[in-house]
């Protein structure tokens, strides 16, 4: 599979997300299944590895060969009529528990309240690479629809043969099959009673077309919302076991520091406290969090650290530390878990950039930068680990339960069968919870303590010892004709990633390249990945070009844009926003948009700049979004609004400040995240394309925010800002 084809499939290589290796392939053993599920009907969705192409990196070929078939999901209907769907996907606030239940209910013609989802439990659910990349809606939603519709088919078949009637005469609805000619009906429960029925899903199974969706396509409230508003839901950090101890880990003063001396005798004396020392790992477990904290404070350790760079030198560093070819040394030495790098450099070329530049009427060369930022999931990492007879069970908040299982198996040199990872619905992640540091630490402490141990990272630990959205340097050089035709496009991204790097404007001569570089900080996946950086640079540069040839930024974009779906969102947003209308003094309008992961987005922003104080306020934002057929409109709106608000933080003020292996603003009082007062008036236009398969929305909808705001600031002030965050300390107007 060539890189080019991957683009055609809409799946770009992205280095920071491709981590989960498929360790083995499930054997479908019927008896095993029914033993833990109970008798009834079981439908397994087996798919050929159609998604192996997502994986990039050198081992792709071998992986494909080892994947004859894979189970994506399964569904069970019990003797009591209970419908349970099993998926390795997890819930981190994107409300997929609701949207996936909705899909099953629709295909199976049962009320949604009858459907239970078991998610992200490595013992009970099928293998899954992870919940990221907005793949749940396009993939899992489809898989579950398929198993559910296959189950429906099997049930209709049984009823038809029991009644000896043509199956086409039977109607399905409300958990029953009805033969109206003979005025009889039968419940699913009765049909499966005493049976061990199995089926697999043929890939080409017909599905209910989007135009006929009944449950799906409607807005449904969060399925277990009551547990959340009453405080009943148990997040990973709320898990408890009898005899459980509380853990704490001693952190080095800087990244990559190594332990040179350790004195634990004071800590050892505290009642019930256990101090664990293993290499550079020092941790304590104690009967209460207070004792654990005191024990940790009583540990005396000396560390040796190495000099490291600060954020002032960052962009220069990235430019100078390009690595040839495959992935680079992204992990600071001595850090406990591995980084997520398995990708490689990317390059695309068409026509001749040099010739086109030479013949252009105008040339423009600019550099854009983006900072490291933190995910700040409101629930910091947490894990509860328990050993029994050399088997390990860990409850933790992660987007990759199977990946964390593999990390645990590796850390403790045991087979994956003896590790079980469960993922209770978690307090958000945004791409920041792919790794299993906390799980490993809790398990290490629990093994020494011979009791279950819970470890909750503090906010400061989450800021410092998780990983960051990659920083990047983006260099763009372009050539344009007087009539506004873009002739040449030379686009280079250093470090931040390849996601969304291709231009969707029609440009004959292009060179687009992602350069892998060393990173001074540990970096990894983040909502929308590099698409945010790439869209920021591209859409800012496009705006600069429009001004260069004195064209309206909207007209300029449409002139260079053929893609119908993109044109549609730009036009829809422009209309809603009333682009071109008069604006108050000190206000500016701007836009940015693009295509990412099956979602098309255009964002228009209005900013108000106070010239005396330098305050920049985003007054309103209009987003037009289209991601194919809409499954749950209100859920989609919620995701888009949320992504826009999160995008505001990275656009305006979020940045990690670091020096010499230390994070300087790693707490909420020092690192600013969007709050109530930062939120502009938000309007969202949803374009529903029932003829196009649904795609996810939690990420793509945020890519237009930063360039729209930057372009609006330029419109208001004539000041062009090319670094994210744009105004961490307000705007300097000279």
């Amino acid at each position: 599979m060539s890189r080019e084809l991957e683009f055609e499939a809409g799946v770009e290589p992205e280095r920071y997300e491709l981590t989960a290796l498929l360790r083995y392939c499930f054997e479908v053993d019927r008896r095993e299944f029914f033993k833990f599920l109970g008798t009834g009907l079981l439908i397994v969705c087996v798919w050929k590895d159609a998604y192996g192409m997502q994986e990039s990196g050198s081992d792709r070929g071998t992986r494909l060969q080892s994947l004859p078939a894979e189970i994506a999901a399964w569904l069970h209907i019990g003797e009591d009529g209970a419908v349970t769907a099993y998926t390795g996907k997890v819930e981190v606030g994107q409300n997929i528990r609701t949207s996936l239940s909705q899909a099953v209910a629709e295909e199976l013609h049962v009320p949604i309240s009858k459907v239970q989802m078991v998610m992200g439990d490595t013992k009970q659910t099928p293998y899954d690479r992870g919940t990221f990349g907005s793949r749940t809606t396009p993939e899992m939603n489809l898989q579950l629809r398929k198993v559910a519709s296959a189950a429906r088919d099997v049930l209709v078949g049984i009823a038809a043969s029991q009644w000896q009637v043509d199956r086409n005469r039977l109607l399905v609805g409300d958990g029953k099959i009805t033969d109206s000619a003979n005025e009889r009906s039968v419940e699913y429960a009765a049909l499966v009673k005493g049976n061990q029925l199995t089926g697999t899903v043929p890939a080409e199974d017909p599905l209910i077309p989007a135009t006929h969706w009944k449950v799906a396509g409607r807005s449904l409230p969060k399925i277990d919302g009551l547990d959340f508003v009453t405080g009943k839901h148990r997040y990973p950090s709320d898990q408890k076991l009898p005899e459980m101890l509380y853990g704490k880990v001693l952190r080095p003063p800087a990244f990559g520091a190594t332990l040179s001396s350790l004195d634990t005798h004071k800590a050892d004396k505290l009642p019930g406290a256990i101090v664990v020392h293993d290499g550079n790992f020092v941790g304590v477990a104690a009967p209460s969090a207070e004792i654990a904290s005191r024990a940790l404070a009583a540990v005396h350790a000396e560390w040796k650290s190495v000099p490291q760079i600060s954020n002032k030198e960052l962009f220069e560093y990235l430019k100078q530390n390009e690595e040839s070819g495959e992935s680079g040394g992204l992990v600071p030495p001595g850090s406990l878990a591995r980084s997520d790098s398995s990708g490689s450099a990317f390059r695309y070329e068409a026509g001749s950039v040099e010739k086109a530049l030479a013949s252009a009427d105008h040339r423009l060369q600019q550099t854009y930068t983006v900072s490291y930022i933190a995910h700040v999931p409101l629930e910091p990492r947490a894990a509860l680990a328990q050993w029994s007879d050399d088997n390990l069970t860990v409850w933790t908040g992660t987007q990759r339960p199977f990946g964390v299982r593999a990390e645990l198996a590796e850390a403790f040199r045991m087979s994956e069968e003896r590790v079980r990872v469960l993922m209770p619905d978690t307090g958000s992640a945004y791409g920041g919870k792919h790794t299993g540091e906390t799980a490993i630490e809790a398990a290490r402490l629990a093994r020494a303590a011979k009791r279950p141990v819970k470890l909750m990272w503090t906010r400061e630990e989450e800021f410092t010892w998780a990983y960051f959205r990659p920083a990047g340097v983006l260099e763009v050089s372009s050539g344009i004709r007087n009539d506004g035709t873009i002739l040449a496009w030379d686009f280079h991204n250093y470090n931040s990633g390849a996601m969304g790097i291709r231009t969707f404007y029609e440009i004959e001569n292009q060179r687009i390249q992602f350069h892998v570089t060393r990173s001074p900080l540990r970096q990894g996946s983040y909502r929308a990945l590099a698409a945010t950086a790439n869209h920021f640079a591209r859409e800012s540069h496009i705006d600069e070009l429009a001004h260069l040839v004195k064209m309206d930024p909207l007209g300029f974009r449409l002139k260079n844009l053929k893609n119908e779906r993109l044109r549609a969102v730009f036009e829809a947003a422009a209309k809603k926003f009333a682009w071109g209308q008069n604006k108050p003094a000190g206000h500016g309008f701007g836009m940015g948009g693009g295509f990412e992961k099956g979602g098309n987005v255009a964002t228009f922003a209005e900013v108000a700049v106070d010239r005396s104080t330098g305050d920049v306020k985003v007054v309103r934002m209009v987003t037009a979004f289209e991601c194919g057929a809409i499954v749950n409109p209100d859920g989609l709106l919620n995701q888009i609004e949320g992504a826009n608000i999160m995008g505001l933080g990275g656009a305006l003020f979020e940045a990690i400040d670091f020096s010499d292996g230390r994070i300087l603003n790693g707490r909420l009082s020092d690192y600013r995240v969007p709050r109530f007062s930062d939120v502009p008036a938000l309007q969202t236009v949803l374009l529903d394309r029932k003829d196009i398969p649904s795609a996810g929305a939690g990420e793509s909808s945020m890519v237009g925010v930063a360039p729209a705001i930057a372009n609006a600031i330029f419109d208001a002030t004539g000041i062009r800002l090319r670094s994210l965050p744009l105004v961490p300390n307000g705007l300097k107007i000279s």
Partner: protein
Amino acid sequence: MATTRQLNVNGRVYTTDADPEAILLFVLRDHLDLTGTKYGCGEGQCGACTVLIDGKARRSCITRLADVAQRQITTIEGLAKGDQLHPLQQAFLDEAAMQCAYCTSGMIMSAVSLLSTRQDLSAAEIRRSMEGNVCRCGTYPRIVSAIQKAAEVMRESRP
């Protein structure tokens, strides 16, 4: 020998042997198993840990046990009356004012305190009063709507 003390939470008297210097948030969560109150920052910056002390919103992550010994503490678990949700809980459900919902209990408790004195707040006043509560998922506009909606319900049901 650890001494015990009494704590009045959600109308119930609990006995705990926690240190008087212990942080209320962890006493609630670890000792009393009331885990609806969340840890988000530990420095009074996010509001996830908000509880009511004598009806007023307080950040339990920066409150010492000794300071609340004689006071009435209300947590999210104590808000509903049996099956009857508090108007704010109902409004958060109705407005789908949550994604991961980790901020939800703190948001609701802060809003309960806010609406206990006034139910005629404008959206701008609500935003200003809730500034200390963070929703990283960005459901702020929905939270404002939910609070407005609950305020309306509370206004109407006033005798």
